[in-house]
């Protein structure tokens, strides 16, 4: 277990700069997720930390030791890959035991440790199986066990679930979270799947185009995005162009552009002044349909014009207009079916949670 620090890391591939001076802090014992679209540099960052790639500039510390130029086999790490990496010529037992021998474990301790770790990943009794006798999920659990068995300082998970089908993915993710809590091993999970990151992580790093966009608790990033990218990448966000009308303790009053409408938002993390253009972000899930007569009890009550409503599983997705601006709403709860049966022309909604993001 260890703290991981990355300082102004730069990695170039020819003319392409994959990491543009990245700073990361991974707290001891945390499950940190690096989330970003494909090509954002998240895997490059992970491979630099693993020692499989040499960065061009910057430093990496694991614990108190600088490891920037240390070979991967001299870093005490565990790693799980996206593609199947259980050694097909070894049994489950041999896969795990070999890793322990490489880390110079005492001979008599190895069988006990293998049993222990197999129990943890729920593969007890499968010691003698080979890769072709296991399912995809089981093989991936072997790799997780193999990575954790030598008690590494840091566990690296490089999209460990994306080769599995959806149901198995959710199951194994829950297991990874349990295992991480049980072992307390500092874990770094790279993923492009926002729900995976939000579900599993207690610390979230959002990356885009080789830079860290935002880092913090998942709920915080979800509720208070600090940039257009953060707001758009996670969940479905409505971006309403506004200007700051006045500062009204404890929040900000905004004027919607091209409309005689005022919205109230919490005070943002960045300084605002009157007349400044901003984006008002409202999540599709943070808009509540309300009965008109109860309007005084709600914040930011507006009337919207419904254009389309469609069932997308657990919720109904409504496309509407707030004055001239498009607005998407996710309506859940049993009331959603009424929307499908007779689509009303207008709805009264409350924009329950409005966040500000800078706009230039």
């Amino acid at each position, binding site marked *: 277990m260890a703290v991981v620090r990355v300082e102004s890391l730069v990695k170039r591939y020819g003319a392409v700069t994959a990491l543009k001076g990245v700073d990361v802090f991974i707290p001891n014992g945390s499950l940190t997720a690096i989330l970003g679209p494909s090509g954002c540099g998240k895997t490059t960052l992970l491979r630099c930390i*693993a*020692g*499989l790639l040499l960065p061009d500039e910057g430093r990496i510390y694991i614990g108190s030791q600088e490891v920037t130029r240390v*070979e*991967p*086999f001299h*870093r*005490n*790490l*565990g*790693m799980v*890959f996206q*593609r*199947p*990496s259980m*050694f*097909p*010529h070894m049994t489950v037992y041999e896969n795990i035991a*070999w*890793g322990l021998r*490489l*880390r110079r474990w005492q001979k008599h301790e190895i069988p006990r440790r293998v049993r222990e770790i197999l129990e943890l990943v729920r593969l007890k009794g499968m010691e003698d199986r*080979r*890769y*072709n006798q296991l399912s995809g999920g089981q093989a991936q659990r072997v*790799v997780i066990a*193999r*990575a954790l068995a*030598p008690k590494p300082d840091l566990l*690296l998970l490089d999209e460990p679930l994306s080769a599995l089908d959806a149901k198995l993915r959710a199951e194994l993710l829950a297991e990874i979270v349990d295992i991480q809590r049980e072992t307390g091993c500092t874990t770094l999970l790279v993923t492009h799947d926002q729900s995976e990151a939000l579900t599993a992580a207690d610390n979230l790093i959002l990356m885009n185009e080789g830079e860290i966009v935002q880092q913090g608790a998942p709920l915080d990033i979800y509720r208070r995005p600090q940039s257009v990218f953060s707001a758009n990448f996670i969940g479905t966000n409505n971006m309403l162009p506004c200007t700051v009308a006045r500062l009204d303790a404890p929040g900000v009053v905004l004027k919607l552009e091209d409309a005689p409408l005022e919205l109230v938002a919490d005070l943002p993390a960045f300084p605002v002044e009157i007349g400044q253009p901003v984006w008002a972000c409202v999540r599709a899930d943070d808009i509540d349909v309300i009965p008109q007569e109860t309007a005084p009890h709600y914040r930011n009550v507006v009337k919207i014009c419904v254009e389309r409503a469609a069932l997308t599983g657990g919720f109904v997705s409504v496309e509407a207009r707030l004055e001239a601006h498009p607005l998407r709403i996710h309506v859940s709860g049993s009331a959603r079916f009424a929307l499908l049966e007779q689509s009303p022309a207008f709805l009264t909604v409350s924009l329950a949670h409005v966040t500000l993001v800078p706009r230039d």
Partner: protein
Amino acid sequence: MKLSRPVLVTLNIAALLLAFILIWPVIQMMLSSFTTDIDFPPRNFTLNAFGNIVWPSYFLAIRFSLELGLWTTLLLLAICLPAAYVLERRRFPGRSLLSVLIFVPTIFPGVTYVSAIGIYVAIFFPYLRGTFPIVLLGTAMGAIPLVVRALQASFATTDPVYEEAALVMGAHPLQAFVRVTLPIIGPGLITASMIAFTAAAMSFTPAFILGSGQPTAAYYIYREIGKVGFTPSVAVMVLIIQVVVLGIVQAMYFIFRRQFRGLFV
């Protein structure tokens, strides 16, 4: 693509005919081994032809062929494994040049390439002329393209993720290669060894041009044909070397197939 029935029948017949043309000399040779003269249909079945061979000198030739096969296989694996590995897994200056140059021996007919080696040896290493290492080298160089190609295909179809996993687990690169990559490419390695061994044990030109008189089996048979023409005893000699070499290759396959259980499909 859907083919009409007449076309399918024609293709079928053509394939059978080709297979027959390819296999017929082998069958004829086997039949002729047990007769008094080369003829079809075979008459007068007898084992006389076996008695007409100078066994001690032919055994010597077979032994030389097998020795050459063994040493060539080892030498080729030592050269071609690293070559195929770097060509497939590493990017370095001169890589494309090397991958082209490795195929030079295939462009020249065997005799010309081996003669070129002979001239080179005569100029630079005259004291090595006719020695076993030179015959070995000549045999190995001709088979390099085949073996590199076979191994390269194995590396190409093996995910580098296994090696990376081994490195992060704490294995040195050499350890990762020996304990992980090598076993995983095992089937390809055996195929490459079989190609190398067969090519060397059946070889004629290097011993003929670079050697100092000790013939390989093929060279021995060539000399016999020169002396007595095509006789049943020549057919017997061909039959024996075929059985020995193919037998060894088959045995290798069966032994190693157990080793790589789970990797052979």
